[in-house]
């Protein structure tokens, strides 16, 4: 079975209702990047319910190298010394443990991402995509905690195949609803899905008096003329956007609660 954001929602449902047997019987053979990031984020959680999930995810990770890598990144909290630090990889992860994550290790990670995306056929668009990826990562520092000095823990990851790429970001912080409603202009929002829609589509920001947020503007600018699929999940809200540039369709819905904010952005050359 391949896990995507749809299956992880069902897994959360099983966890909430403490249905252990169906969880244990899942034969997971593959995960997409979004699922890897969300399942890795589970490792941060201390809630009793999620203890049910830990052994299952660990078991799945034995058979799924990408999930194993995401979990190891979370546990280790740093990037291992690598041979050929400039060599692009088909996928990899990077942990966010402090506000000072934008260090030399990250620069190497970013340059590998850029090179991998360029080699996959994206050419000069790779730099813009790296910029958008950085912005989404910086959002963890900016918004996951009560101040940018103490962000929640998080994880970044990318996966690149021929003419396709996905990057993803996840944290287990306070989520977009709590963050956005710090701004009185957005105080009226009560649902996580509405908060997601406001930040992604209306560029709403928790920062007072500084106009629209810039991060998601940069994401859509980087995708400019490409087909894309974007998945955003926070609290009990879900927002997906897909399609061609001038006909992108957004779909807002509810999900089983999970803390923080996770997202993935996929696009193809054609």
């Amino acid at each position: 079975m391949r896990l995507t954001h749809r299956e992880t929602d069902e897994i959360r449902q099983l966890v909430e209702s403490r249905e252990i047997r169906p969880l244990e019987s899942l034969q997971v053979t593959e995960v997409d990047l979004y699922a890897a990031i969300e399942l890795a984020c589970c490792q941060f959680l201390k809630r009793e319910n999620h203890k049910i999930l830990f052994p299952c995810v660990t078991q799945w990770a034995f058979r799924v190298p990408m999930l194993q890598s995401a979990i190891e990144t979370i546990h280790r909290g740093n990037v291992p010394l690598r041979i050929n630090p400039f060599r692009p990889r088909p996928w990899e992860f990077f942990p966010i443990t402090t506000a000072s994550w934008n260090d030399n290790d990250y620069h190497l990670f970013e340059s590998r991402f850029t090179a991998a995306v360029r080699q996959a056929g994206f050419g000069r668009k790779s730099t813009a995509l790296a910029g958008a990826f950085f912005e989404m990562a910086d959002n963890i520092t900016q918004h996951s905690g009560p101040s940018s000095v103490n962000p929640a823990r998080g994880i970044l990851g990318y996966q690149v195949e021929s003419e396709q790429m996905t990057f993803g970001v996840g944290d287990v912080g306070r989520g977009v609803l709590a963050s956005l409603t710090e701004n009185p202009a957005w105080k009226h929002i009560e649902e996580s899905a509405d908060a997601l829609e406001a930040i992604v589509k209306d560029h709403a920001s928790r920062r007072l008096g500084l106009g629209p947020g810039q991060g998601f503007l940069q994401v859509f600018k980087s995708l400019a003329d490409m087909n894309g699929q974007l998945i955003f999940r926070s609290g009990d809200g879900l927002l997906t956007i897909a399609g061609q540039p001038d006909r992108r369709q957004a779909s807002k819905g509810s999900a089983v609660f999970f803390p923080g904010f996770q997202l993935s952005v996929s696009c193809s050359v054609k």
Partner: protein
Amino acid sequence: MILKIGNTEPCTTKAVGATLGEKHIAALRKAIADGTLADGTLVILDFEGIETTNGSYLRATALWLLRCGQLSIRPDDMLVGSNDPNSLRPCDVYCALANVEGEVAQEVEDFFISRPIPILIGRKLADDQIVSATLTGNLEPVLKKTLSIVSQSGAVSASDLHTRFKTEGISVTAWNNRLADLCALRLIRRQRQGKQWIYEPLTKEIVYGRGIYK
């Protein structure tokens, strides 16, 4: 005050992201929060050696400083008083940019063209001040004309302009409003002398557009 971004910790050639922007002007933010920044300080963010920037960085640095300056002229209780160290604080501070070229210039233009606050970009600097500048962003024609007059004439009051341009039929109040608007946009300075405000330019020369003919 010139802040050389490329030499400010953490040093980089990529001035991107809100977090980096906050770090680069952390000392200024602290001085503003503590009330120790001298009134009328002009902060010139010097992009020499910077290869790229983005909207989040410009929002956390230049726009943040400009908005703090605006609030010193036009207070807004809704925007201040938060415990967040990154929230806006009224302060008589000005901000301009320098050595903005290539990709950085394009980002700056894209950022400021979409909002109601323009910014000066120094073309020639001397002694921490701007001798000549371009203006990026939108400015109403009436304010643009007033800015040119102030730049050329030096220190003026609304009544000076009313006297000098009597034939144009613009009242002292109207001149005063225009000057106050320019000051709120952080494009000219003002000082109270007796009962009136005296306005002064931040630069003697302003070139509009990209200044290709200069």
